[in-house]
């Protein structure tokens, strides 16, 4: 087992460009994901808005000035309502503010939105409510009728979330890619030779799983190092629990990757299959976007993925600093998946060798 893992390790280490990409890409993507999606999930939406004031009253001019001061360059004025609609439809603006004159009545404020931009429209609408009320000569509705109280740890939860989410996604990508080396070894007869020398396939597959797990741990470590500044201060037990989680994520990825590649006859089969599976698991499991943003059915379906379990465990031990029963359950799921994958790969490889 160690001989095979060592051979794979030396092969990995000698491909310096591959090493750099394997260990550098995950932190880079993490930083991007945390920056791009993290702000959105925190409610910091930088909405671009176009505005057209068709009423042209002193009051609407004052409203436009107030908005311009508040939004800065994100607010752009246009000369007619048609141009405003075009800007919203073609995506140059996330929403539009149209102020219409109304004979004998106060000007009417309308938020112009396009399909798929409901969140932007709702945010603008909330911001305009007091101004629209003022234009209408009404008293602005109270803004704090319902209080919000934040509980739990303070800090950049999204940065912590995406550290787990992105690392899991990359560990699975790397495991799938790495496991394809086994297809080459099967085709060349190397696998048969090694199995003969050692007296069976089990130690050979275990060696591969061991090395893929090590690569997974290295990738997870690279991502968490990049995220370190944004993580809460970790107690030693949290760091240890995070490390255990990384090992089990690597093992589950290795098991699944070996099972999938064992089911394939060639790289040509394995590449699209593994890419599809990795993307599907990442999407369902919350590696791309938090699962609380998903419809309920997909949120429930996410539990069939190791990603969801792993992210939940990372959140528990790294962010919430709690060692709940869910952590142990998550570890058990990840370990069981890895072991099952390894077992399936052994059965499939044995069956294939006998064909």
């Amino acid at each position, binding site marked *: 087992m160690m*001989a095979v893992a060592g*051979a794979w390790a030396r092969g990995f280490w*000698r491909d310096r460009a591959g090493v750099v990409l394997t260990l550098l890409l995950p932190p880079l993507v993490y930083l991007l994901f945390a920056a791009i999606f993290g702000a959105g999930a925190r409610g910091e939406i930088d909405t671009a808005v176009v505005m057209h004031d068709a009423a042209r009253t002193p009051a609407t001019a004052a409203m436009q000035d107030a908005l311009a001061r508040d939004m800065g360059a994100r607010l752009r004025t246009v000369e007619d309502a048609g141009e405003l609609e075009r800007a919203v439809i073609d995506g140059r603006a996330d929403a539009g503010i149209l102020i219409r004159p109304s004979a004998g009545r106060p000007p009417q404020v309308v938020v112009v939105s396009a399909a798929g931009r409901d969140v932007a429209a709702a945010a603008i609408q909330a911001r305009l409510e007091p101004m629209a009320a003022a234009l209408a000569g009404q008293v602005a509705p109270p803004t704090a009728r319902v209080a919000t109280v934040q509980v739990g740890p303070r800090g950049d939860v999204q940065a912590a979330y995406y550290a787990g989410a992105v690392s899991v996604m990359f560990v699975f990508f790397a495991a799938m890619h790495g496991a394809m080396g086994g297809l080459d070894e099967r085709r060349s*007869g190397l696998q048969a*030779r090694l199995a*003969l020398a*050692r007296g069976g396939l089990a130690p050979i597959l275990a060696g591969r799983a061991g090395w893929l797990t090590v690569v997974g741990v290295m990738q997870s470590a690279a991502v968490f190092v990049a995220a370190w500044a944004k993580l809460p201060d970790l107690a030693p037990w949290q760091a240890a629990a995070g490390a255990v989680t990384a090992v089990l994520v690597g093992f589950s990825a290795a098991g699944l990757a070996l099972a999938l590649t064992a089911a394939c006859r060639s790289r040509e089969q394995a590449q699209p299959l593994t890419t599809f599976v990795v993307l599907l698991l990442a999407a369902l499991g919350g590696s791309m976007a938090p699962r609380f943003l998903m419809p309920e059915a997909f949120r429930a379906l996410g539990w069939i993925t190791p990603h969801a379990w792993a992210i939940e465990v990372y959140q528990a031990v790294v962010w919430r600093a709690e060692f709940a029963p869910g952590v142990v359950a998550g570890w058990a799921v990840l370990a069981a998946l890895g072991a099952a994958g390894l077992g399936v790969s052994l059965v499939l490889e044995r069956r294939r060798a006998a064909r």
Partner: protein
Amino acid sequence: MGSSVAPALVLDRVEAGYDGRPVLRDFSLTLNAGEVYALLGANGAGKSTVARVACGLLPVRRGRVAVGDGTQTRARIGLAPQDSALFPALSPRENVEVTARLCGVARDDRRAAVDRALDLTGCGPRADQPVRTLSGGWRRRANLSAALVGQPRLLIADEPTEGVDAGTRGVLSAALRETVKAGAGCLLISHDAVFVSDTADRIGVLARGRLLAEGPPNALLHQAFGAARLLSIRLTRPASEAAAQWFAQAGLTQADDRLEWRRLCDDALAVAQMLAAVVDGEGGEVAVRRPGLDDLVAHLSGASS
């Protein structure tokens, strides 16, 4: 061969195949320790299936397979597959070391065992270069070295000379001879008739999963052809009608490509002289030679069909 030494491999009335389709039926073969036994046969004859059965990679449905005295572990089987079964990023030395570790060669003995295996195939000069940078011939040497490092009781070499030059072929032949001299048995699968003639003690001719004949190469050739010689006429274009009539009357038969005419006979030289003028007129060449192992395989396979 001493009768007290157990055979390196025994296949006794074996039936094996793929997906319910039998390839070997009632197949028996005994490979003695200290001999190179070459399996010959056309593509699809079942040679690789025999190798897979011998390795234990393909389970048998019926019959018995024994390696050595029956107590040998599979680790005592050295396999040199047809392709370059090596880690491409590692050097030949590192590849051989990995196999040595897996074979259970003790740490203290490992370096000597690796050096010995590399020396046997003359792989030393390229032993520390990554396999991916080596030519086909050096990869073949490294491939065989990896199979030899565990000092196998049974060595299975599948097409070890594919794509190698004459010099490398000689080195590989010497490596196999040296290995069996040390007491191993070698099952050689090859289409290289010259290599087999130079290396094998016995050959077995296989067709459709059955052993048609086995024995020392020269004995089998003599048994099949006696003193007959093979007369062949090679043309650059199909023979004219008149020439074809001459060839047919002289007992020659046309090959599938319509450019070669052949006849196996005791008076091949006389027939060649008789047809010389006709062949000249057709712009062809006449050759007379002793039949080789390729001819033996074709002869036996044709006779059995």
